[in-house]
Each structure stands twice: as C-alpha cells, then as structure tokens.
C-alpha cells in the first residue's frame, strides 16, 4: 500500500494516540513520541512496524503521538491513518488481524 498524501487518525486524548502519515520516497521513517517511551517504546514501535508491514507500507513518514494507548488502539489508528493516506476505501481485512 502506498501513502500518497498526508493523513491523520486518532486523538490526543488519554488512552488514544495521534498518527500522522505522509509520503516519503526515501524510505520508511517511524517517529514515536510518548510519555511512556522509556517503558513501552519498544513495544509501541514493534506494533507500529508490524502493522505497517502487514499493510505492505515500506515508504513514508509515520509520526506517533501516544497518550497511553493499548496495543489494539495503536494498530487500529495506524491502519486508519495509512488507509486514509493511501486514499483507500476498500479494506482488505486479511491484512488487519
């Protein structure tokens, strides 16, 4: 899946996260900002990377502002941002589980 435009999903409310994606032809750049980055930074990054891999996203800039979201919310918000950024209206559910 190719990110062709800037897109955002999520919020900055507690237990949520804001995900911003934008095109980046030079590669995949994941930036994570979180108050709990010391404790959970690795897990957050792993969840984001795995979600992007399942969506076949290998190029783009993905910025995460985490507010203590659980793993399921991270995956859902990243998927929503990527689908919006790819201009995709049809969801391939097999890529999302």
């Amino acid at each position, binding site marked *: 899946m190719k990110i062709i435009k800037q897109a955002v999903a999520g919020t900055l409310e507690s237990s949520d996260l804001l995900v911003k994606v934008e095109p980046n032809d030079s590669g995949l750049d994941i930036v994570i900002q979180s108050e709990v980055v010391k404790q959970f930074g690795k897990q957050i990054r792993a969840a984001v990377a795995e979600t992007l891999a399942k969506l076949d996203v290998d190029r783009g800039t993905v910025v995460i502002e985490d507010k203590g979201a659980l793993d*399921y919310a991270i995956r859902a918000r990243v998927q929503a941002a990527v689908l919006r950024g790819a201009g995709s209206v049809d969801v391939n*559910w097999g890529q999302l*589980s």
Partner: protein
Amino acid sequence: MKTRRSMLFVPGDNPAMLSTAFVYKPDSVMFDLEDAVSPREKDSARLLVFHALGLPAYKDIERVVRINRLDSEYGLKDLEAAIRGRADVVRLPKTDSADDIHELESHVARLEKECSRPVGETKLIAAIESASGVVNALAIATSSQRMAAIALAGFDYLVDMQTSRSGGSEPELFYARAAIVHAARVAHIDAFDVVYGNVDDEEGFLREVQIAKQLGFNGKSLIHPRQVDLLHRAYAPTQKELDHAQRVIAAADAAHRNGQGVVALDGKMIDPPVVKEAELILSRVYAS
C-alpha cells in the same frame, strides 16, 4: 441461557471506554458505530471496534456491535468489521419490518462463510424506533432464528409519534413497551427497554427500571457505566422473594416425588405458573 439485563453502550471511537467498559460487568457491551460516531470518524471507529472485539477482557461478556442502517453508506462496512471481528451479536437500528432483518441475515450469512465462521453463529438484535417498527414488532421478533432480542429506542419513536418524554409513568411509551414485550415473549427472545438519558438522575432511572421490570422487560439499554450496578440491583430479587421462591421449588419437588399433581404452600396452591415464576426469581439470583 444467556442473561441479558444490561446492555452498555460504548462509543466506537473512544479507545479509553472501549478498553475499560468490561470493569463495570454489564451482561452485554454494545460497541456503537452509529449515532455515537461522527461521519468523518466512521472508518477509524470501525477499525477500533474490529480490534476491541478481540480484547481478552471481553471473553466473558456478550459483545454486541451496533451498525449503521444497511441503506446508509456505512452499514455494510460496519457489518463486515463486526462479523470479521467475531462479534457475538449485531444490533440493527431503526428496524421497521421483518424484511430489514431478512436483508441483514443474508449479508451476515455471506460474511460468516467468507471468514470461516459457523453460519448462524452471529445473533441479531433489532432496535425498534418507529411506529412501523412497533406495529411490526411480532413479525420482526419472529423473523429469524438468529434473533436474540428486540429493543425499544424511545427518542426516534416518540418523534415519529409526534410526542415527547413526559417523565413519571410515561403513558406515551406504554403501547410500544407492551407491544415489544409481547412480541419478545411470543418469539421466546429478550426485550430491552429504552435508555435513560439523564445519567445524574438516579431516582428517575430507578423509577423507569421498575416500570420496565414490571412490564416484563429483561433489562435496559444503558448509556452510562454507573447505571449497570443500579440496574442489576433493581432486578435482583429481595431476600423475601428469594426465600419464598426456594420454598415453592421445594414444595413442588416434594409433590412431584409423592406423585401429587398440585400442592399448597401457606394456604395457596402451587401450580406450574407459580413454579415458573419461582424459577425466574432464582435465575435472577444466579445472574447477579
């Protein structure tokens, strides 16, 4: 048999609530993709609900997803997320006729096949929100083997009836409530009463719970977590009711063992309806 007293609405676009609603121990959680979610957030909420359905914390709670109407641009997408997320129940809003359920059922069966779920596994709840829905309540309730319950939604119904909530004994809802409960009893499914919107008015909520309980509703749809425990307490039998029910069952068992058709307890005849009522009371103890 599944106990359904409390169905707690959880906005589908709110991760904080999606991940914590289980702590209030409702009988059912209803992840809402309809009115609680703005049109521009439908896509993101659908994904949140899809993943929230898989949270281990909900393994002992019935998981319901309220989808948008199938004739909207969101309905079928919501349904696919619910079925692929392995929701236990799909709640259809604004159900006006049995045809609405038949259409939903055909899509549910197709999606169950596509994602290798047993066909027939997903149950359905119809929300009745119009005069047509109330008049067709029996046809709706008996429209499918998948039907688990019907629920009255008061706001849209009263707008359709050109009236509004009055508080107190609420005569404006009496016919609809009675029709819904009768339809549910004929179909052997559950019936849910309307939501009570003023979450700070505990007295008014409990007054409405008593009306619903007395009419025979299994429970209510709830919009705030604090209403769950209030509802469960109101539906729980008193110690006096419990003691009497246990004595009725004991007397009926003794009569059965002795080959007697009927038996008296405290001067009153214990016949099958009395035994059934006692069993209902005891079932509410075990559910609480």
